[in-house]
């Protein structure tokens, strides 16, 4: 069933160079950004510390040692010192990584999924559904973020899970808007028309054909929203409306020890610094991804 085919065109004569794939190209670009690499290394380190927390720490973060109170950093086994009831600050900080990363990753993952789904549906179908969803987003965005989150926590009850769910519920608005805008633009592209002309279902077109073209901004925004969620959890816990003690939240540690700033500054310095560095690391990674994944910014 072969055809009398055409003579090979000039295309055939060219040997095809192995063009690096999109992801290896992006990785090469990413590696050039030192801050982004530093941020990534820091995050990997945090993940290792979080996983091996029981091995790394000597003391239980809840253990109260009345003999070893108010120790400054580098006092024997207490590398970060102890607080006024004898908690080992290093253990608190290391176990705090678990809380922060759990909140950060869960919130970023699920709010991105939620925002992407709603934004995709809104942008692709348009019409009344789009209007209703987007007005809802407008309405939520008009309420100060922290108040809205507190309202959700009020309904859900306090605790780590409540904080995570509340932050997911308040975290999808911007993603939905961004994804909607991309879908609005991409659904007019000819390849979408072509996919419809081939008889593909709407969900296939939305999630197999359009979504992969929108992944770059979604990934970048998801990374930045990890930082946002970690910061939000710390803020809520600091304000005593977040996680409950004795959960080792960095925000909670800052709050508990803020009165001792003058006498025992390390008790605020370590958890505060941990929040600061972790958030910064995710922001650097997000910026690095933005540059690496955006072909227009490639040098």
């Amino acid at each position, binding site marked *: *069933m*072969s*055809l*009398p*085919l*055409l003579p*090979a*065109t000039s*295309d*055939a004569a060219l040997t*095809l160079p192995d*063009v690096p794939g*999109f992801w290896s190209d992006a990785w090469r670009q990413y590696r050039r950004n030192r801050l982004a690499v530093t941020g990534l290394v820091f995050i990997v380190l945090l993940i290792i510390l979080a996983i091996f927390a029981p091995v790394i720490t000597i003391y239980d973060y809840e253990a109260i040692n009345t003999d070893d109170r108010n120790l400054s950093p580098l006092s024997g086994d207490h590398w970060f010192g102890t607080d006024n009831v004898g908690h080992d600050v290093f253990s608190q900080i290391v176990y705090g990584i678990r809380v922060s990363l759990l909140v950060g990753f869960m919130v970023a993952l699920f709010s991105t999924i939620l925002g992407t789904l709603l934004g995709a549906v809104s942008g692709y179908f348009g019409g009344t559904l789009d209007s209703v969803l987007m007005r809802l987003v407008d309405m939520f965005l008009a309420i100060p973020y922290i108040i809205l989150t507190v309202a959700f926590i009020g309904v859900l009850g306090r605790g780590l899970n409540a904080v995570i769910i509340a932050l997911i519920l308040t975290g999808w608005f911007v993603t939905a808007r961004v994804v909607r805008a991309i879908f609005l633009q991409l659904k007019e*592209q*000819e*390849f979408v*028309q*072509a*996919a*419809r*002309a*081939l*008889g*593909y*279902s709407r969900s*296939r077109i939305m999630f197999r*054909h359009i979504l*992969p*073209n929108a992944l770059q901004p979604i990934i970048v925004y998801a990374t930045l929203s990890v930082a946002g969620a970690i910061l939000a959890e710390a803020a809520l816990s600091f304000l005593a409306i977040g996680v409950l003690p004795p959960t080792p939240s960095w925000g909670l540690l800052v709050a508990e020890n803020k009165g001792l700033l003058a006498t025992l500054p390390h008790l605020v310095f370590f958890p505060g610094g941990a929040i600061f560095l972790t958030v910064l690391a995710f922001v650097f990674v997000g910026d690095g991804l933005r540059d690496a994944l955006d072909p227009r910014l490639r040098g």
Partner: protein
Amino acid sequence: MTATANGGGDPLLSVQDLTVAFNTSSGTVKAVNGISFDVRRGDVLAIVGESGSGKSVSSLALMGLLPSSATIGGQALWKGRDLLSLRDRDMRSLRGREIAMIFQDPLSALNPVHRVGRQVGEVLRIHEGLSGRAARRRAVELLDLVGIPQPERRVNNYPHEFSGGMRQRVMIAMAIACKPDLVIADEPTTALDVTVQAQVLEVLTSIKDEIDSAIILITHDLGVVAGMADSVLVMYAGRQVERGTTDQVFYETAHPYTEGLLASLPRMDSDGAVELVPIPGSPPSLQRIPTGCAFNPRCRYVQDECRSDIPELRWISSAHHQAACHFADELSLAGARA
């Protein structure tokens, strides 16, 4: 050539009085105004016209791909079923399987993030339920069939790694993957270099014979029509102005607009002595179609009657040949220079 054009047998697709109107903020715009045609297996029907003549809109209407702001009228019988009243889901199972479409710009019509092999294979996985591996094997065969060299390597490439002509071959491979009965090619060569155009048309023609399908070729390029089509439908401002076999339309031209189109066509064999004659003026806005014959402000033979009455399609002396001109029988128009 004329034998297949109007040969016997029931038509695959029979379009009757197709109308498409769009509701816009500035009123209703009639983009397609009562066109009719039949397509039989093995036929190549060319729909010819300038931008905005309604040729692409007609094909999108048949495929059910127009936005919901469009109001579609008339009938399009496909193997006895009316395409225009099919349910969404039935239409979807027809698309790509029985009726396929090739688009103008093959770069934007291919998904930039998927490998070519996956895109060609996907059609087969959806419509024929092939496994990933079998679909891929078929994809390689199809790329080979449309003349892409080293197909087993090329399936792993992305669309941007292909040249324009090669991309259009990929589009053709996707369109013919399920051996459709009808391929609608919407300006398939317009975005390509002239040297590549002929190759792509040749692929299209040989594929047509291979899978025994019909082709609706939508184009503004009469050179493409002459090389490929059996019959021609000329559209102007959403209306059909002339139809017949390619020979009839080219050599027994019966509508002044067709004459104008042919006169503005450069010829390779003229020694430069024959000047190209453009049609004066420009096509009317669909919101302000002139009364009477839509072509009357640009027509060199215009009479009072043309300004008041819309001409009906009328039979010209030879069979199958129709033109919508009040004076089709009286005018002696210059066709293509034989």
